[in-house]
């Protein structure tokens, strides 16, 4: 038997089913040929080492977070009552059973969208000395398993967005209504849209400018009229509009 013959036979011989019991003529060739026996040994070593790679990698925690989000959206997680009576002033986001799947490649948008909604409701619920808004909306649009950008409770991102540290800073004073500078999240959002759906970028950018302008305008009014609970409701809804924009884009980015 020649080296070439052995080589031709190896795919069958090494498939693991023979359990190392090679035919006699192959065995005798291997005993006398260092090159071929080295080859066989190497290939068996590689095959053996490969087994150790099974289940060797750990996925990051965000994988479970996204799975849980989707399971909830599809109604497969049913730990809460599925048909609770709708409260007045319920957030405009769709009920979870109807929500489409989050795009997995734009995973970072999900917590931003959730934070926008949660942050908006923080505005409503944490202002002292004002009449309780009859239409106060419960925060139930953000699934509890959605991680926030800071990796902590949903109120934290809102605190990052307080006027002094607002991620949207108008370029001139509050006297004039100006287009705000897009925040880092907005930039990332537009960049993702540009990459995945370039024909839609201009549309999304215009919509983003519009919702940001609405948020700023409403925020300015709320700052001047802190007792106006209705206005604070509208500010929260303006944030929800922005979250809706992210969601619609996010569902489309694939």
């Amino acid at each position, binding site marked *: 038997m020649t080296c070439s013959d052995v080589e031709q036979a190896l795919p069958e011989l090494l498939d693991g089913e023979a359990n190392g019991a090679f035919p006699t003529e192959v065995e005798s060739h291997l005993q006398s040929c260092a090159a071929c026996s080295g080859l066989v040994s190497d290939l068996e070593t590689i095959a053996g080492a490969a087994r150790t790679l099974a289940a060797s990698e750990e996925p990051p925690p965000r994988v479970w977070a996204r799975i849980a989000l989707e399971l909830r959206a599809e109604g497969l997680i049913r730990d809460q009552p599925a048909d609770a009576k709708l409260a007045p002033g319920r957030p405009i*986001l769709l009920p979870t059973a109807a929500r489409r799947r989050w795009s997995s490649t734009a995973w970072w948008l999900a917590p931003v969208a959730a934070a926008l909604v949660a942050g908006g409701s923080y505005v409503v619920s944490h202002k002292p000395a004002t009449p309780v808004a009859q239409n106060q909306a419960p925060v139930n649009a953000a699934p509890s398993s959605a991680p926030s950008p800071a990796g902590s409770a949903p109120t934290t991102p809102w605190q990052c967005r307080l006027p002094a540290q607002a991620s949207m800073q108008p370029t001139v004073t509050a006297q004039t209504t100006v287009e705000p500078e897009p925040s880092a999240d907005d930039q990332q959002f537009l960049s993702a849209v540009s990459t995945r759906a370039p024909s839609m970028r201009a549309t999304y950018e215009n919509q983003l400018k519009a919702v940001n302008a609405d948020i700023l305008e409403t925020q300015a009014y709320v700052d001047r009229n802190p007792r106006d609970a209705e206005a604070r409701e509208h500010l929260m809804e303006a944030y929800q*509009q922005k979250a809706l924009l992210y969601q619609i884009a996010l569902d489309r980015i694939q």
Partner: protein
Amino acid sequence: MVEFRKASSQPASIKNTAIVTAVLATCLSSALCSAAFAEAAKEFRYTVGAHANISVDTQYGSISVKPGTDNEVVVTATLKSDNVEVDQQQNGNRIEIASHLLRGTDQRNGQVDYELLIPPDATVNLRSSTGPMSAERLQGDLTLEGAEAAVNVRDVENGHVHIRTMRGPITLTDVRNGHVEVASISGDVHLKGVTGPLVQVTSGRGGISYDGDFSSGGEYRFTTHTGDIRVLVPADVSADFKARSVLGRVQHDFPLKPRHSRFPEEVGRSFFGTTGQASSEVVLRSFSGRIRLKQR
């Protein structure tokens, strides 16, 4: 070239038929035969039981859904080029159809138009960026989402209807007895003959118009940020009205019976009161849009 995708786990009831019409562009030579633009129609049929769940997702293209027979779903997909494929699969009562764009495909080449005939009690989920999307004469739950898609829903009884668009206009006609939830960032929303236990509509910059009677003892909430809200109702409407615009003008031409409210009434910016038996609750809110309640 038309390519079929096999569904993942199928009973023998699936039938694929293809009708190909090829329109040849200029062919300089066989080697240079450029962009042979073939529009292809494909049909998929599925057998389903009661309360089937049907999803259609296309980035570019229209989707129209109408009632068919009680246990069959028929999908006709018209593909504008061969740079887009239709992925379809059935798992029991759940059918998922999606347009799959090949790399570098744009809106023109990537368009797939869908027409569906479905059992009237099926749950439907539609998504299209460009649309339009329409659904009519159905009784199951409907969810429609489109960025710029115009959405048109008519004659839906008992089903819950959820719609959201970025700026696509939304028109609902004769939708009754279910929950209606509509959200748009800047699309206009038109409701005619829409009644039910809950009708909640929000548009940021678009306007909301309602022509109906606020019946069924339901809860009706219309909210805009800058868009106008226009409501047209008969003289015998029975509702408890609350309306307020923070910065916009508010008008009504009804003799409302005043009702005690926590909100201070500002003439021209808000009104509160009841008509008839106050059976339904109607809340109209805007940040800076105008609100108008008019008698038919």
